């Protein structure tokens, strides 16, 4: 049950990972654990953390949310939702445990960061369309002296709502610019090998491509290999990723990729934990933590930004 007591409070925080086999979730958990240790020391309380595996499955995670909210094992829950709209079904939780969500909001609207579901006290995320819009604006900037500027879109999964929103946002921006031609949209499925295949195919008819937009670093890695295979030097085209992995940061710093879109999962995990602890201690809580503003710079970066921050390495591997 709620374990706070007068002398030396102690809190059990359960982290519902999207998957325990996923670098992003691991990084968020790392942030949670680190921040928990810091806060414990700072405030003289005991914060214990546990991780559960959502197996990239919406139903599994829904069950875990219900279980954690019913069995009295958790004083607070942090989640990286596999399916934000679906997860709303777990609410209200049996024991009114506060929930903080990371990466995606919980509730019917995947773009809305403000509270949509009672019980979700904080959302540490940013709308998918904002990130995608930023990427597209970088592309527009890159293309401004190129006409025609031929771009390929490397989307995640076109049957996933988040990725459809991203592709829509790309189009919103790019379609306004007459010099920009979209030569193809292919699926990368968050997988290097699949992206390699898709981009190789795309390049068959478009050897003169000027750039590729991708919403995930793993996909961009695959695209980079495809470009090299096709005899195109990746540094001569527009190439951006999403996620801010260590590899991506290196690639941008080296100039292999022209751009990057940073994510800060470790910091986000720490922020989420902070909000939960604040809530449990009756202190003010940030209902929305804009994930894009958590870095010292970024989130949309170029080689120049990284040369200015030579020590920055990225927060995660994935």
């Amino acid at each position, binding site marked *: 049950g709620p374990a706070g007591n007068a002398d030396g409070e102690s809190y059990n925080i359960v982290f519902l990972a999207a998957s325990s086999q996923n670098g992003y979730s691991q990084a968020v958990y790392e942030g949670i654990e680190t921040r928990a240790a810091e806060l414990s020391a700072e405030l003289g309380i005991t914060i214990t953390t546990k991780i559960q595996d959502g197996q990239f499955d919406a139903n599994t995670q829904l069950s875990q949310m219900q279980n954690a909210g019913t*069995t009295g094992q958790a004083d607070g829950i942090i989640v990286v939702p596999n399916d934000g*709209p679906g997860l709303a079904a777990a609410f209200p939780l049996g024991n009114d445990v506060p929930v903080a969500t990371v990466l995606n909001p919980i509730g019917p609207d*995947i773009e809305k960061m403000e509270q949509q579901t009672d019980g979700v006290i904080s959302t540490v995320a940013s709308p998918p369309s904002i990130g995608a819009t930023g990427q597209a604006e970088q592309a527009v900037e890159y293309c401004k002296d190129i006409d025609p500027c031929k771009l390929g879109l490397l989307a995640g999964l076109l*049957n996933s*709502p988040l990725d*459809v929103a991203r592709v829509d946002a790309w189009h919103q921006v790019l379609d306004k610019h007459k010099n920009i031609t979209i030569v193809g949209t292919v699926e990368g499925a968050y997988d290097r090998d699949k992206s390699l295949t898709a981009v190789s195919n795309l390049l068959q008819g478009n050897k003169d491509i000027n750039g590729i937009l991708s919403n995930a670093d793993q996909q961009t890695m695959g695209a980079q290999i495809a470009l090299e295979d096709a005899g195109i030097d990746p540094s001569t085209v527009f190439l951006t990723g999403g996620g801010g992995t260590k590899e991506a940061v290196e690639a941008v710093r080296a100039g292999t990729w022209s751009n990057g879109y940073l994510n800060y999962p470790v910091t986000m995990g720490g922020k989420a934990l902070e909000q939960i602890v604040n809530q449990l201690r009756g202190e003010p809580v940030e209902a929305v933590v804009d994930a894009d503003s958590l870095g010292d710079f970024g989130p949309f970066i170029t080689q120049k930004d990284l040369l200015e921050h030579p020590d920055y390495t990225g927060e995660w591997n994935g």
Partner: protein
Amino acid sequence: MSEAINTTVTQIRSRKRFAVKELAIEYAVLFLLGAVLIALAILSPSFFTFGNIVNILNQNAPLVIIAAAGTFVIISGNFDLSSGAVYGVAGVIAAWIAVATENVWLALLAAPVAGVVLGAFNGIVITKLRVHSFLATLASSMIFTTIAVLITGGSLITVTTPGFSTLGRERVGGVFIAVFIMIVVAAIFWLLLSRTIFGRHVYAVGGNDEAAELSGININRTRVIVFVLSGLAAGTAAAIGVSRISSGQPLAGAGLELSAIAAVILGGTSIYGGVGAVWRSIAGVFLIALIGNGFDLLNLNPQLKDMVTGVIILAAVGIAAAGRGRR
């Protein structure tokens, strides 16, 4: 005389040994389910609470329904790899209708109806093209998912119509409505398989389709009905699922088909067809579900969950096999 007595004693003994062996083979999945239940009850005080039990039942209601119907499919010698896709389409259609018409019951009824239609499509393709169901339903699941994607545009349909979430979230006497539906559906499927002519035909078609045909059974009709049932079940499960999360999404059922098949076979229904039972599949579903529940309750390293599940599956079938000697 004393020899005669000896013989009787030996016979009785060996019959007893035989009985234990037979039971071990026959009810391996129940033994393991019992063992896991006991272990969890001892290890976690939160396990045997009303809340947790009701949660477990509720969470698995859709899968139980699909696996119960999947039993028919496997017994008839087939596979249905499209259940997950049917679940996705049916859910999307329900959400779409709810948004379009604001008529909750029409929307939720549309899901099982869509399931029936897609199931019939599977059945007809399999019997008319005489394709093995494994390949046919793999192909049809691709087609079905695309339909769902086209309906939603790949995005999701959020339903805010009041009352839409009643089916999936409300309780009666503390127990979710979905649990009652699960029990009723499972009971109907159990009766259908074990007590009716149709059920008998399913066994015969799966056991030996030529013998079934020569016994006057319309084997194609039986197969089509089996796939219709499977579609109906996936659609019904989708109605619960879509109501629960109040949004329709093409990939909502991804992976359900393999979970259902695993549960059916884990229960002891033969993949070769002809042998099996509905209760077995339900036991299979809950055996896997309890492992997941236990990991969460006991705070074990979640990265090990898959391994433990795999080992327990092998144990379940290993127990059954240990009963058998060399032929």
